[in-house]
């Protein structure tokens, strides 16, 4: 037990690497804060294009969404980070990670928004048109507010996944929380920094994870 604590919860090594972990945490938060709104926005654009498009456009968008959802985000990141330099287009790590996260989540958010917009009854569109709304303003003022409310649970769940995905940045040498913990582990020959990073991630994400889970339970109950 003592040996276990010495390895996994070693106070000395924790104190030594704490500043490094905090720096990592701030980069994790920064990545999330930048990628999340961009992903939401581009997903929303794709869903809008779907709902204003004619049927070939719609089929094309469904194909695009499924393609994006089938592509592992790490493969995308490796393509962006390691293969674009062959064209002399070397993106810095931060930009590469944000780009990969945004492209990947465009598929997920796009599908969620699309499903939400589709679930709003036809009569709402007709009622808005009868009140003299343009198609665009009907979308913004009438359809979207209802659509978003219907898909709050999957939106929240996907946003949580996006934040968790920022840990992939560690694989392109970007010193976010996980990468900092690995570096610290190699400096101290001790896995305590990894335990600490896991605990930080848990404390940070658990409230959201609980909240998402409550909303998902409600959604299942409504379907039963």
């Amino acid at each position, binding site marked *: 037990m003592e040996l*276990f604590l010495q*390895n*996994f919860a070693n106070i000395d090594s924790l104190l030594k690497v704490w500043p490094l972990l905090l720096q990592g945490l701030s980069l994790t938060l920064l990545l999330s804060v930048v990628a999340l709104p961009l992903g939401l926005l581009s997903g929303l654009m794709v869903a809008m294009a779907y709902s204003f498009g004619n049927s070939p456009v719609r089929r094309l968008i469904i194909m695009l969404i*499924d*393609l994006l*959802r*089938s*592509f*592992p*985000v*790490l*493969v995308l990141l*490796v*393509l962006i980070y*390691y*293969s674009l330099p*062959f*064209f002399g287009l070397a993106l810095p790590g931060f930009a590469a990670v944000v780009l990969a996260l945004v492209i990947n989540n465009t598929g997920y958010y796009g599908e969620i928004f699309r499903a939400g917009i589709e679930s709003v009854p036809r009569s709402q569109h007709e009622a808005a048109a009868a009140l003299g709304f343009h198609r665009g303003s009907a979308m913004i003022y009438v359809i979207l507010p209802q659509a978003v409310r219907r898909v709050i649970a999957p939106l929240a769940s996907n946003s949580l*996944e996006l934040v*968790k*995905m*920022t*840990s*992939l940045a*560690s*694989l392109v040498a970007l010193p976010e929380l*996980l990468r900092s913990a*690995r570096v610290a*582990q190699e400096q101290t020959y*001790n*896995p305590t920094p*990894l*335990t600490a*990073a*896991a605990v930080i*991630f*848990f404390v940070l*994400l*658990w409230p959201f*994870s*609980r909240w998402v*889970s409550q909303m*998902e*339970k409600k959604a*299942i*109950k409504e*379907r*039963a």
Partner: protein
Amino acid sequence: MDQIVENYFNLAVMAEALPSVFAGFLVTIQVALCVIVIGIGVGLALALLRSLENPVLDPMITIYIEVFRTLPQLVIMIFVYFALPYAGIRLSPFFAVAIALGAVLSAFAAEIFWAAINALPKGQWEASSALSMSHWQCLKWIILPQAVRLATPLITNRAIAITKGTALGVAVSLQETLGSAQSIMAIKANPSPLTLAAGFYLLFFIPLVAASRKIEKRMAQTTS
């Protein structure tokens, strides 16, 4: 244009890379199957254990579910592979990935199965016990057939999303599709093997994503 073909669709390089990327693809499929079997098997078992409402088991299951639902996959994988050896647990890259991702999927699956079991009206349990069915008989014949139907779309989506995480195996030097492609890319100084790897992933995941879309559609029709 020539540059794109030269770098991304270089047939000579692709032909050379094919055997090892294909070998990697077989590893990806094997890990993916392990993850799905472990994840759904353990997840269902946990949900069933939870239905016993045992005061000792319940908190333990809850902690397991919360931890693995909340932590990023990569953090768990790195922890399993790089930190557990300090506790004398050494896993091969293959099992480290299968167990880490299996644990994540099992946590999500347990939560979804449990929510589905709970979403069914209490009257069904009461009616079964009035027919003198035991707890397990009721689960097996009455509750599970309905709960599994309710849970299927959510579990399929999670299973696909988590299985895509097998690409994270590169972080623990598993020679799966992405890892094999990356090593050849480094040797040949040409990213065409990555295109090949991306093709294999799409071959595997596009049918799954398309199938999950169908399942969702059918569920939406039968429940509304």
